């Protein structure tokens, strides 16, 4: 499914510069080097981390979107950065596990 379609299923877009991107699988984790090493290209990355480094990792690991859980949002400057780098970021009030379960029903 396309990243933008997540909005119809309880995920709120914070940035959506590349909403047509297709989601292929997912990876859940908050430690950046694990994500770098294990997430596949085009995966959705589920995390509670929302600092600036997340934007860099998302670009370099080439994930299709970042899904912030537990209601985490982005600071304005990180939001601007994600936007500029073409990174889709969505948020949900669900905890990471429930968000992953939800996503797996969808993709």
């Amino acid at each position: 499914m396309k990243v933008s379609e997540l909005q119809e299923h309880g995920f709120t877009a914070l940035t959506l510069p590349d909403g047509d991107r297709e989601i292929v699988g997912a990876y859940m984790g908050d430690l950046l080097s694990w994500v770098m090493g294990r997430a596949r290209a085009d995966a959705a990355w589920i995390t509670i981390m929302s600092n600036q480094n997340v934007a860099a990792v998302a670009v370099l690991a080439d994930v299709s979107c970042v899904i912030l859980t537990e209601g985490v949002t982005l600071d304005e400057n990180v939001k601007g950065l994600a936007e500029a780098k073409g990174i889709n970021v969505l948020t949900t009030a669900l905890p990471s596990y429930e968000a992953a379960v939800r996503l797996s029903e969808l993709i």
Partner: protein
Amino acid sequence: MSEPLVFHYDVDGSDFTSAGQASVFVKRNLRQLGLDPEIIRRVSIAMYEGEINMVIHAEGGEADVIVTEDAVEIVLKDHGPGIADVEKAMQEGYSTATSSIQSLGFGAGMGLPNMKRYSDEMQIDTELGVGTTVRMKIRLT
């Protein structure tokens, strides 16, 4: 492309939050060169881990990326504390990162293993109190 293409960056060691800029820049350049996306991804990840290590463990350094017809070579040079036991540092999970660095999401002890995994060749030259140079090569063919 007969002449090798060289990119040089000074990696600022004082700013953890914006670390990774050199890698993001290299990625953009390699894209413009039209390299295979999977190769670009491997270069990006290997370089990012090395760049971050220079920032969090060595107060910054220099990065050179050399693109030739058959490989991308990444050279990361710092004048930090050096690595006492390289074999130990290469193990998954080994980290000396402080808890404040861990709170940013670093310090899993996975950086060097990732660099090894995503490069075809990797060499670490390090001396305590002098610095560390990491060379990685990702073959294009």
